[in-house]
């Protein structure tokens, strides 16, 4: 073993900075998780702050808001998964069939662009469309119709969230599928054609199986983040009038943990989310492996 390590010493040396980097910036901060179990005193530091056991977890689970927050977080994440996950795949499949390179590039540029805008900017643009004095309401009024409340209407809040999230990210999300599509052997398509397969059949029997490992991998990763319903976006669109359907764990933690400086509670909630995320990713990975797909580990 030691001989093997010595033989590959340069390779190990090469990877050493990466290991050091992750050790310092990713694993060492885990120490801060202990804040969740302490009455954190800034001047005493994490080490010397007194332990309070599971008090912050109790206060999280006892909160009347918690079931609602958990429900909203999971529902919004599932909506994103169900409606948002297939869109980049479909878009990549469509784009893959485009034969005019200039058209393909224009479409790609236009659809990638929103990804590079922050949610603050993109949310502002969306507000100019759907706000009370926005373009859509202006058109409705000019058409003799009543204004529609998009922004503080609990009935449409989740729909607005899912649609705007898809609009912003579907182009960028398609990149990885396009890369996978380019790796499919062209001979398979030729063989399918010889066998009489049309476009749809080719997509069904060649393209989709070709990118299935990537789809499974990304699905697995997205499932792990089911308690991350998209803080930036929801924070921008959220309003107390839609708390019932839109307030998620992260926005609540932001208001209470950061704005009100309850760092211990914020850490406890973060730890809870992390544990759920680990359980989900391990479960999803096992399911995928048993299905015979390429798993994460």
């Amino acid at each position, binding site marked *: 073993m030691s001989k093997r390590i010595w033989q590959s010493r340069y390779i190990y040396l090469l990877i050493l*900075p990466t290991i050091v980097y992750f050790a310092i910036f990713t694993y060492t901060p885990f120490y801060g998780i202990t804040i969740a179990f302490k009455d954190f005193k*800034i001047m005493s530091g994490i080490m010397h702050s007194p332990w309070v056991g599971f008090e912050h977890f109790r206060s999280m689970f006892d*909160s*009347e808001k918690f079931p609602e927050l958990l429900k909203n977080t999971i529902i919004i994440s599932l909506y994103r998964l169900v409606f948002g996950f297939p869109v980049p795949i479909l878009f990549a499949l469509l784009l893959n069939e485009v034969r005019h390179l200039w058209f393909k590039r224009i479409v790609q540029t236009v659809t990638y662009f929103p990804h590079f805008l922050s949610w603050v900017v993109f949310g502002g643009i969306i507000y100019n469309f759907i706000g*009370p*004095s926005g373009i859509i309401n202006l058109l409705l009024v000019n058409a003799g119709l009543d204004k529609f409340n998009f922004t*503080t209407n609990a009935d449409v809040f989740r729909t607005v969230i899912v649609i705007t999230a898809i609009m912003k990210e579907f182009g960028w999300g398609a990149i990885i599928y396009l890369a996978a599509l380019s790796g499919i052997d062209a001979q398979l398509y030729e063989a399918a054609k010889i066998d009489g397969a049309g476009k749809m059949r080719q997509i069904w029997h060649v393209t989709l199986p070709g990118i299935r490992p990537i789809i499974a991998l990304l699905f697995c990763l997205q499932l792990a983040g089911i308690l991350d319903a998209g803080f930036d976006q929801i924070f921008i669109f959220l*309003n107390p009038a839609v*708390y019932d359907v839109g307030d998620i764990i992260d926005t609540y933690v932001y208001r209470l943990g950061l*704005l009100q400086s309850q760092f211990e509670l914020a850490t406890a909630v973060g730890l809870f989310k992390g544990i759920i995320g680990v359980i989900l990713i391990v479960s999803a990975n096992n399911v995928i492996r048993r299905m015979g797909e390429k798993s994460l580990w």
Partner: protein
Amino acid sequence: MYQMRHRKTWKLGRLSVLLLMIVSLIAGCSSNSSNGNTGNTGNNGNNGNKGNTADNDGGNAGSSSGKKLSFSYLRPTWGPATYTKNGAYEKELFKQANVDIDVRIIPVVDYDSTIKTTAASGDMPDAVWATGPVDPFWKDLQDQDAFTKLNDLLDKYPAVKAAVPDGIWDKMKDDKGDIYFIPNLIYPVVPFFINYRADIFEKLGIAEPTSIAELEAALQKIKESEPGIVPMTHGNTIPFWAGKDVATSFGDAYGWAPSKDDPNKLLPPEMQDEHLNYMFWLQDLKKKGLFDEEAGVNPDASFGETKFKAGKAAVILGGNLQSLLPELRKADPKATIKTMSPLAGPDGQKGGTRVVFPQDRGFYINKKAEGKADQIFQFLNWSLTDGSDFRRYGIEGKTYTVDDQGRKVPIPDDERESDYKSSQIEPLRFLDPMSEKLDWQAIELQFAGGGMQDQFAYYKSMFEKYAATPYNDYKDPTVSSPTNAKIGAQIYEDYMAKVSGSILTDMKLTKDDYIKARQKWLDAGEQKIIDEVNELQKDKSEPNYVD
């Protein structure tokens, strides 16, 4: 032979890459702290002085040894966050005061959350703005010995001590009589006027409203006659607070007040009918289309002022005449603005203004910078004595001119060179004495500088009308309930945040819904908090911050 050379080259290549990565890692992790001597940024005065005419040899704050004081300073800014280091004003200040201040700013809307996170990291600058001991977070940090005790320094530098009224210093004391916090003073009377477009009112034949009912009737007429105009909007803050002085017409002091059943028991605003009446009145106006449909919805708090300045709104709650009028006249040169006198309420209640505690934040000196505290006080002392003129007026020809009566007239911001605009000066402000907080002569000169001398007398008379009927928050802000510190924020979030925050956005929300949520809030711990406040605050008489 070839293979050996190839292997050697390969090894060398890998070693080089490895070395490069290690160097990058070390460089990336090394501190870029600008604390300490911040590499002389050229503040020696030999910088081409852009026409500075202030006394170059004026007394300075520098220590008796003449060594330049260097410290870091973090504060919020209310104006545009466009400060850039090494501006001409900053250089002149540093030269005159013999200091080198490493300034960082954070826009005030983000300040409280950002600074608390910074404080929690344990990496605070030498002088740091905070809410002070009125906030349980800072009080707790103060009690943990995070800041320098100032008692001796206040005795040593009487100009600093004299800048703040004794009554405010008393409020800053902890239970041992120690002071750690230098308050930023504000004049307690800050009327949020009800400004209106006098030209629109005149055109529609509407007399200036004197009561809430007349205001409603006026708004209704504007809505029917001027479809492109928003009848009423609000200034650059949350809608209910923008209307704090309209609230007084409902008897709402927007703060703790004695219970009707027991004058010796104070109750928070959420428990008062007057407060609810005011908030649901605004909701009703919005339902009728008389109050801006974007109130409470638009994430940009300044939308109301933008509309008013663009000539798209007829009445605005709050908003500053000195900024509204010049901007409005750019859009509509014939526009005129007037201010409604405090309105009579639905029950005949006399309106006035909600008075505020005369302190809005302030700053601490970090315990780690205790060694610099004396020099920081020397600088503050200079700014209140030898440097007082520089602090108040700035530089002749750049920030003010002298009129034929010898008065220093401020140059309006949009006429100043970029290095002398208020956004470059505000980050370098520290302590202004209470005696300057309501200086009518200075305000008159500001009006004169902005070309609005003719508006000054009117403005002053309206100020006095509002100030004549003060409404106070009875709660002593330095009294803090232990239960509130522990669970106050959480129970408010859990039970009240939705109803309080959605009165103007959920038109189906009723007073009954509010009262039901309030009951749950009381049961969850708010009642205990109210009891504790009443227990801890012995003096329940109406405060008087003005005299």
